[in-house]
C-alpha cells in the first residue's frame, strides 16, 4: 500500500497501464514533456518516451480520431481531453463515431479506447472550464462512462477501462486532486458498473458521484452527529453501466432516496437514477425522491456565486431536513 493523492493516482494509473500492456499508448495536449496542464501526468514521458506518450496539437477532433483509428487497429489508446468542457469541440467524434462504430459495422469494428478528461467546478475556472458532462455522456449508447471519487478508484477504474473492449470515458474531478488514500501496490481493477457503498445507513440513501461523494459523506456525518439521521452513501462510480441493483437494495432498506449531483438539474444523471428507482422501487419509497443538483446556470466565476451553484454538505443536510 502507498498513500497517494488523486492527482498522482492519475499518472500512476496511466503508468501501470503503459507498463503492463504494450498496446497502450497515451496522447493529449501537453501530457508528455510538460507533465500535463494539471501536472497529473508527470513522469510518464520520462519513463515511456515519445513512442508511448504523445504530445498533440490543439486538435481535439484529431486526438479522439487518432485514438479511435488506433483502437480499431490493435492498440489501446488513452486520450486526454484537458477539460471536460472541451468534449464540446469533439462531441461528434465521441458521440457519433467512437460510440457507434461497433454497432454500425455489425460488430466488425472494435474501439477499445479510453478518453479521460478533467472536469468540475469549484475552483474559479469559469463557465467554459468547469462542467461535468456525465449526464450528456450517459445519454449516448455505445460508450461506458465512469467518474472516480478517490485515488484508488482513479487507478482501479482506469485499469478496468483499459482492459475493456468498449470505449470508456473517464471523468476526473479537479476539486479532488488533493484527496489522499492508500492504494495497493499490486495490480488491481475496480469493475465498471459497480457502485461502492461509502457509508452505511438506515434512514435514507444518498447517491453521489465524483466530487459529490465527499460532500455526501460529510453531510451524512453531520446528519448522524447533529440530527440522529443515519444516511447511507452510495458512490455510483460509473453511470454507464449503472449499478441499479445496489441502489435498489439500499432503497429497499432506507425507503428514501436523494441524488446529489454536480450538474444543472434538467436531464441530469440524477433524473435517470430517480426515474429508475421510482419505476423499479416504487413500493419501497416512503417519500418522493429528492434531487440536489447544481443551479441551472453556466458556472459563474465569482467565489460566492460559484459556491452557491454547486451542492455542498450544508445544502444536502438542509435538503434532507426539509425532506417531506
Amino acid at each position, binding site marked *: 500500500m502507498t498513500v497517494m493523492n488523486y492527482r498522482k493516482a492519475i499518472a500512476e494509473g496511466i503508468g501501470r497501464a503503459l507498463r503492463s500492456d504494450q498496446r497502450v499508448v497515451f496522447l493529449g495536449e501537453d501530457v508528455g514533456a510538460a507533465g500535463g496542464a494539471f501536472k497529473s501526468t508527470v513522469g510518464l514521458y520520462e519513463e515511456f518516451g515519445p513512442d508511448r506518450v504523445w504530445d498533440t*496539437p490543439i486538435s481535439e477532433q484529431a486526438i479522439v480520431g487518432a485514438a479511435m483509428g488506433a483502437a480499431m487497429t490493435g492498440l489501446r489508446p488513452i486520450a486526454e481531453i484537458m477539460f471536460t468542457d472541451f468534449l464540446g469541440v469533439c462531441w461528434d467524434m465521441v458521440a457519433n463515431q467512437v460510440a457507434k462504430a461497433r454497432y454500425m459495422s455489425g460488430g466488425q469494428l472494435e474501439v477499445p479506447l479510453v478518453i479521460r478528461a478533467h472536469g468540475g467546478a469549484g475552483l474559479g475556472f469559469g463557465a467554459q472550464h468547469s462542467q461535468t458532462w456525465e449526464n450528456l455522456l450517459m445519454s449516448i449508447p455505445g460508450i461506458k462512462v465512469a467518474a472516480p471519487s478517490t485515488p484508488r478508484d482513479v487507478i482501479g477504474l482506469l485499469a478496468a477501462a483499459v482492459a475493456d473492449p468498449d470505449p470508456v470515458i473517464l471523468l476526473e474531478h479537479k476539486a479532488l486532486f488533493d484527496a489522499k488514500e492508500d492504494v495497493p501496490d499490486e495490480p488491481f481493477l475496480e469493475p465498471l458498473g459497480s457502485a461502492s457503498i461509502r457509508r452505511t445507513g438506515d434512514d435514507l440513501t444518498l447517491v453521489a458521484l465524483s466530487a459529490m461523494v465527499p460532500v455526501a459523506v460529510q453531510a451524512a456525518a453531520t446528519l448522524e452527529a447533529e440530527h440522529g439521521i443515519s444516511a447511507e452513501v452510495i458512490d455510483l462510480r460509473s453511470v454507464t453501466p449503472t449499478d441499479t441493483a445496489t441502489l435498489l437494495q439500499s432503497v429497499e432498506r432506507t425507503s428514501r432516496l436523494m441524488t446529489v449531483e454536480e450538474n444543472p438539474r434538467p436531464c441530469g444523471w440524477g433524473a435517470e437514477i430517480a426515474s429508475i428507482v421510482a419505476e423499479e422501487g416504487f413500493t419501497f419509497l416512503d417519500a418522493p425522491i429528492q434531487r440536489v443538483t447544481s443551479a441551472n446556470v453556466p458556472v459563474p466565476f465569482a467565489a460566492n456565486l460559484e459556491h452557491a451553484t454547486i451542492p455542498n454538505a450544508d445544502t444536502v443536510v438542509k435538503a434532507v431536513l426539509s425532506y417531506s
Partner: protein
Amino acid sequence: MNAAVSTDELTDWLRMMTLIRGFEERVKNLFSQGLVRGTTHLATGQEAVAVGASAALQPDDWVLGTYRGHHHALARGMSPASAFAEILGRSTGVCRGKGGSMHLTDVSHGVMGSYAIVGAHLPIAVGCAWSSKIQDLGRVAVCFFGDGTTTIGAFHEAVNLAAVWKLPAIFVCENNRYSEYTPIDQVSPVAHAAADRAAGYGIPGVVIDGNDVAAIRDAVDVAADRARRGAGPTIVEAETYRHGGHSRADPATYRPEQEVEHWLQRDPVAAVRRQLEATAEPGRAEQVETEASDQLDRALEEALAAPEPDLSTLTDDVYARAL
C-alpha cells in the same frame, strides 16, 4: 504512364469498374422500387478513383470512405452479395443490416468503415496511420473524401496531425465539383480545394485526372511509397464527376448541360474499355462485362433471398457484451 499498363491489369480494372457500375445501377433500381430505404449516394462516374487507388495498395492497407462509398468497398474486395444485402437491410449484410448504404464496412478487406458525417473519418484514418507507425506495420491508411469536405474543421486537424507526425496517411479527395447541390468554387476560395491546401501543411499536394485509373494508381503509388518510407502524408486530388445527382432522386438540374456532357464523354469505364479493346483479343471486354453482370445478378438474387435481421439482434454490438 498508361504505356506501362498490361492487358491483364486493364482486364482487372474493367472487371471491377463494370462490377461497381452495375452494382450501383442495380442499387438505383432497387431504390426506385422502394426496396432501399433512406438514401443512397452513387459514385457512378467516379469508379476510376477507387479502382486506381486500390491498384496501388497492398491487401493489408486500410481504406476509409464516406456515405458515397460503394465503389471503395467493392474495389477492395467486399462481396457484392453482402453489400447488396446490407443496402437492402438483410441479415446477411456485411454489417448485419445495421449500417446500410452509408456505412459499408468490411474489416476483412481493410475497409475500416464508411462514415456519414462529413470530415469525421479523416481523423480516424490518421489514427489508423498512427497505429501503423507505432506498431511498425508498414501499412498505409487511405482516406477518400469529397471536395466539399475540405471546408470542415476535421479536415484541417487531421491533415495537420498527419503532417507533424509524418504518418503513413494518404488523403484522396474525389473532387466531383459539388457538395450536394453547391458548386465547390462557391464555398472554397482556391482552385483546388484539397491540393492547394497542402502547402499549408508542408506536404505534397497533387492534382490528377480522376477518370484515369493509371494516373490515380501512379499518384497513390508515389504517396504510398512516401508514406511507407516515413516521409509523411500526401494529398491527392482527383478531378472527377458524378454522372447522377447527389443522392436518391436528385435530378441534378443545377448543373450546366454542357458540363454534364463534357464529363459523360470522359466516362472512366468507357475509357478503360477502349484501352482494353485496343490491346486485348476481340470479345475480351464483352466477356468481362457479361461475367460481372452475371456475378451481380447472382449476388443480388442471394441478397434478396436473405431474411431481415432477427429482432433479437437489435441490441447486439452496442457493446462487446450486453450491459
